[in-house]
């Protein structure tokens, strides 16, 4: 078997540039970005959310394998998408005629916290880590469920606005509590 890739750290787009703690105004902007996208996803305003993604977006979700503390960590892949794939997902779940997973829509609430941000020297690229707790209540199942995750993002500033260039989501589960993970993290 091919080993799963080690946890991918978001890479420095500008080479070996030293990262520093993001300045306060940048941090606030980043925080508002994360809060606003959570709101847009919960409200199912997928087109608005899509506009926040850089065209070269790399979006990857993994979950964990239970391993001995002395063994090399492993993950299993949940999804590995580019912009075209994300658009296809959105086309499906935002069209009531094409989905039962999201029609009737589930109730979701995304709680974002523990945000830490590092900046490059020109303050146009940011390594951002955040914790995400997603509440989801599917229409068909009475019991809601929670999924906790850590997100490692690369945000870039282009034409004055922040865009999500990379997102690596690690779900804190080894058996996904639902068979339907149609939502974005």
């Amino acid at each position, binding site marked *: 078997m091919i080993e799963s890739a080690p946890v991918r750290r978001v890479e420095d787009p500008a080479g070996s540039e030293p990262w520093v703690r993001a300045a306060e105004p940048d941090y606030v902007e980043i925080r508002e970005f994360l809060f606003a996208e959570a709101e847009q996803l919960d409200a199912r305003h997928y087109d608005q959310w899509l506009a926040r993604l850089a065209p070269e977006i790399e979006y990857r979700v993994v979950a964990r394998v239970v391993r001995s503390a002395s063994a090399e960590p*492993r993950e299993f892949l949940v999804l590995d998408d580019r912009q075209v794939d994300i658009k296809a997902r959105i086309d499906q779940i935002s069209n009531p005629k094409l989905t039962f997973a999201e029609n009737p829509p589930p109730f979701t609430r995304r709680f974002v916290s523990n945000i830490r941000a590092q900046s490059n020297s020109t303050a146009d690229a940011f390594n951002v880590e955040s914790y995400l707790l997603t509440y989801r209540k599917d229409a068909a199942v009475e019991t809601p469920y929670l999924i906790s995750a850590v997100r490692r993002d690369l945000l870039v500033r282009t034409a004055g606005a922040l865009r999500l260039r990379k997102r690596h989501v690690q779900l804190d589960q080894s058996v996904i509590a639902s068979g339907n993970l149609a939502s974005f993290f």
Partner: protein
Amino acid sequence: MLDRNDVAATWIDESSGTVSREIFVSEDIYRLELERIFSQVWLYVAHETEIPNPGDFVTRTMSDAPVVVVRCDDGSVAVLLNSCRHRGVRVCRVDSGSAKNFVCPYHGWSYDQHGRLLTTGFDKLLPAGTDLSTLGLVRVPRIDSYKGLIFASWNPNVASLADYLGDFRWYLDIFFARTPGGMEVVAPPQRSRVKANWKTAAVNFGADNQHIFTTHVGPFAVQPVTIPWPQRRQAMEDGVQVVAEGRHCVTFTLTKFDVPFALYPPELRTLLATRLNPDQQAVLSGLISGAGTLFPNLSFIERMIPSTEPGAGKTVLLRLWQPISAGEMEIVSWCLVDRESSPTYRERSLSDGLRNFGVAGLFEQEDVELWASIGHPSANPFAQAHPFNFRTAVPVLHSPVTDFAGPGDAYRPLLSEVTQFRFLQYWNRMMTGAK
């Protein structure tokens, strides 16, 4: 609790093509399934490439019992009940890893990879004459593999795996042993829980071709189309569904390409022909999609990567529907590639496979949502007075077609529910002891 003698003869009715709702919701029937099916037959536990090196192990479930599947130093595979003979603690508390011995964390009873007890840690305190060789981990008595697929059985008297698979090997070869290197598991399996009966998934893959037109409009609408609809429709007409050994099911949509194996990357095309006979090659060469269920709970699917380039390739997934109760299962899902695949193709095959048939799959997210809505509406007497319908099986049930080269009973049309119904008829025979 159901008595051995009071199982209903009316669960399946061949003349009407109906199936009791109860068998998808009753905990009593689930417990009887564990006894009469899952304790009796061969069950899939792992792929050889998950445990390539001595000491490598994965933990799995066989008939509601946790087991460790381990590659031993001599290259053999042992399947051990994951419960210490001393006081029952799990000797292995992880999903996968590598170990020389399994040491119980509670009092230190230590076992080798074959499950033999090496020491209790307090051997001198045992009564004189205590034979440690009688105190090993419980071994699953029968283990065998076919083309990389490892199976085990709790039944010491079960017929050989070769006999159990029988004619279905002809089809397994097409999916799992078509290049010299065979198939390889790409990454640790996805695992997820779904509130549905395991048979719902087993018959969906073995094979419900009707629901593609209702449940799965989305993935065809939002992804690139490799093969235009008229050709795909003809491929469904030309396709076939097969029951082998009366219990294992597979379905194919088949077309003909000018270039053999046109859907695969060029570097794989010549290799794909090397291990298959001409009839098998003809199936794989024109295969748009294929899916099947190996009785009772192992399914698989191969389908083309949606792309505007025909040679973009395929994805192959292996799915285990592990029952947890009558109303819940764990889905374990492996993505496989031909070992000769390039690194780029591997990645693409994996990500496309999961984009369509994983817990976040464009197909699967729709299926599981609907499967999870069956149990509650079917668990009441008002519903159970009215069985499920597999009526489109009836007209063709006794008239398989004769123009398909593969073994077993082949049927058309592809949209008939005939193989699903025969799967459940076999289930019924095992459950009731009927002939």
